[in-house]
């Protein structure tokens, strides 16, 4: 086995329902703010989604690059370009001295998206082509957010475009990590994006995954809590600069932390959800966590914080809790867990990368972000979920977990760089 290179995070960009930058989002998060609210329009009256985390006051006109290109971008791509722009600036990379071909990009996106006007227009006119914009295909393809980011920032290196639904963002960061670890590249920008597109909302609307709207919309999503009923959909984009350690040191980069393990495994989710099936899923998530702990050869009692999937599904939160207990034993009760989805909503393809950013910031600042809306404990979910208020705590190692909607498990382990 060749010697594995070390990989660090040196920049972050985040556009989320909590703010238009990583810093604003983080500050709102640790202040206990929720980004979930009523949404006025889903683009179609038949889509029964009334609450969501939307990105507010986002102005695409401020995006870098040619104005003509901005017009070609769908909202996912606009959010992605904004997040990648922030991440590059945050990392302080001198693009004059960085070879464009050395810069890789890995990005997750949802899938082909239609806006209802286009689709219905097309239907009403019985497929008359004149109702469509000539560049229409280039506004619906899922890889376009990656292409626009590459064009806006002249990133000509390897590219990885993922479409593995809610695991996409984590897989993008993980794949970039592996590519650098094994020497395929020195520097990558990795992340994911999703918007509140009607076609995504429609695909989630009757899925049983969405939280029932409460009178106070911000209280609707209650991860790990007894009354949890699902998540609120959110939108946003997250981008992370992932860099080889010596490369980062050579340019005196500010290092957020080191990524020291990544694993992604698959688990079948199919009814019935009987005890045997639940046990299999707990074992699957536990195996995924064990895999990353093994990669980093880290003492598990040093893991002080877990940014959980916590998507507020009745079963998923319980499975995640059981898996954490199985892996960490007594230490499970000493470590801090939180689900930032209560505040941001489920950012879908951006969620994994956004949560990796929050995890890195938690480690850097020594602050554990809270799980909002936690009032009534669920006896089956009995860990310390950092209820409602953030907490100061030294974090020697942190884990970001993703339990994808179709059975993907992914884990990213981070630690500070001494």
């Amino acid at each position, binding site marked *: 086995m060749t010697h594995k290179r070390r990989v660090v995070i040196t920049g972050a960009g985040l556009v989320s329902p909590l703010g238009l930058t990583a810093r604003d989002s983080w500050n709102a998060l640790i202040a206990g703010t929720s980004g979930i609210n009523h949404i006025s329009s889903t683009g179609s009256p038949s889509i029964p989604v009334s609450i969501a985390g939307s990105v507010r006051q986002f102005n695409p006109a401020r995006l870098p690059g040619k104005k003509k290109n901005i017009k070609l971008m769908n909202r996912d791509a606009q959010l992605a370009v904004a997040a990648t722009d922030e991440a590059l600036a945050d990392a302080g990379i001198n693009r004059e001295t960085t070879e464009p071909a050395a810069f890789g990009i890995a990005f997750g996106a949802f899938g082909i998206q239609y806006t209802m006007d286009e689709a219905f227009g*097309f*239907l009403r006119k019985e497929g008359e082509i004149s109702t469509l914009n000539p560049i229409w295909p280039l506004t619906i393809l899922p890889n376009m957010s990656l*292409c626009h980011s590459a064009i806006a920032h002249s990133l000509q290196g390897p*590219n990885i475009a993922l479409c593995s639904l809610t695991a996409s963002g984590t897989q993008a960061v993980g794949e970039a990590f592996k590519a650098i670890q094994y020497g395929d590249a020195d520097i990558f920008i990795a992340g994911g994006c999703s918007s509140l597109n009607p076609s995504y909302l429609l*695909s989630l609307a*009757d899925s049983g995954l969405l939280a029932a709207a409460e009178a106070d919309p911000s209280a609707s999503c209650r991860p790990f809590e007894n009354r949890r009923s699902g998540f609120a959909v959110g939108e946003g984009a997250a981008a992370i600069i992932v860099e080889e350690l010596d490369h980062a040191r050579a340019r005196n980069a500010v290092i957020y932390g080191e990524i020291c393990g990544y694993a992604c*495994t698959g688990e079948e989710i199919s009814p019935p959800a009987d005890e045997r099936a639940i046990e299999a899923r707990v074992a699957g998530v536990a195996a995924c966590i064990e895999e990353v702990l093994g990669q980093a050869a880290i003492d598990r009692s040093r893991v002080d914080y877990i940014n959980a999937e916590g998507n507020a599904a009745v079963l998923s939160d319980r499975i995640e809790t059981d898996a954490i207990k199985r892996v960490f034993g007594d230490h499970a009760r000493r470590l801090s867990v939180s689900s930032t989805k209560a505040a941001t909503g489920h950012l879908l393809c951006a969620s994994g990368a956004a949560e990796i950013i929050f995890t890195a910031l938690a480690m850097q600042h020594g602050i554990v972000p809270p799980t909002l809306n936690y009032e009534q404990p669920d006896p089956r979910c009995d860990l310390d979920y950092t209820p409602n208020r953030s907490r100061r705590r030294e974090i020697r190692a942190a884990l970001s977990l993703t339990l994808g909607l179709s059975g993907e498990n992914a884990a990213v382990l981070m630690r500070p760089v001494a």
Partner: protein
Amino acid sequence: MERRVVITGMGAVTPLGETLDQTWESLMRSQSGIDYISLFDASAFPVKIAAEVKNFDESKLEMPEEMKPFAGRATKFCVAAALEAIRHAGLNLDVIDNTMFGISLGGNEETTKLSEFSNAFREENILYSLQNKDLSYFKDANRLAQLWAIRRCAHTTSNILSILFNARGPVSTSSTACASSAQAIGKALRMIEHADADIMITGGCDSIISEFSVAGFGLLGALSHNNGDPQRASRPFDLRRDGFVLGEGSGILVLEELSHARARGARILAEITGFGSSSNAYRLTDSPPDGRGADQSMRSALLDAGLSPDQVDYINAHGTSTLINDRSETLAIKKVFGESAYATPISANKSMLGHLIASAGTIELIMSVMTIQQNIIPATINYETPDPDCDLDYVPNEPRKYEVDSVLSNSFAFGGQNASLVVERYYDA
């Protein structure tokens, strides 16, 4: 120690045949799979031709009936190709370590079919049920299928394959339009090299011959308008080329870590030795006139394989038959290969198969492996009038007997994403 990755099984469903052998035989006869569109009424469309899979019998597909409503046409092709590949590999899934068995696909199981889309939307009952959260309506499998049609996404195919074959290792979906499956294969290669898996089912599928896609790609000016003579519409590198022809199908490879393959006495078809990718970072629709991006993708794949350009025996080109692609690909090949560009045979399977979009890269890699096995290079058909800008050896019109030990296969996508793969004859050393 470096983990080597070999190909032990392949399966294909294409416009030239419903199996790997049929596809290869048609390719050897230099047949075109292109004809008038039958999947929808294209009479009012400016483009009326496509490369459709013709004799695919869904009822014979070995797939649990209860799963079929969840699978679209592309996924069904993919399941058929995967079953063929697993059989071809002689792989007994009951005895493998399924935590080291993963799926990496370039998928596009999206709803682009107007009939599915409109059926789903026009069903007022569906809207009623959605609004009232009353799901009893969907207990009926047909209605479920209608709803599912608008909920499918690229990842659906990977999910279905992972359930069908009980893959508990890494499962992921790449979506980079026309480079999707090449990217997915590159990812599968890395998964095995990095010991995340011992066996990967990889490749892709696509079936987007629909009102939306024909309209969409047509609007972009990317499709051939040669409605008068469908079989001669796809003419990569020929001076009179006027665009690509949409195709559909699936190609699946079984990739395996070498010692794993040997331990079970598997027949080794070829070794996959190189992968490279790059972004043009130029424009959404055009490739850079200087071939930038494509050259880097080829260079990094060759570097990964440890081959110099003059060690490449054959290039399976992306060769879409669009004016711009074929010119800039030629230019990029010259930049990478220098003088040896003129001595290296190049051909475009798309001249016969059409453009299988997300599954183009995997089918072309499979045909490259067949080329190594048979020592015959498939032709670029419809090559009649040389283009001064495309002056390489495109193996015109007739397949060519040629000793081929190594192939470079290119896939380039809208938006400027490039991927190149290298396969070589397997030597036991």
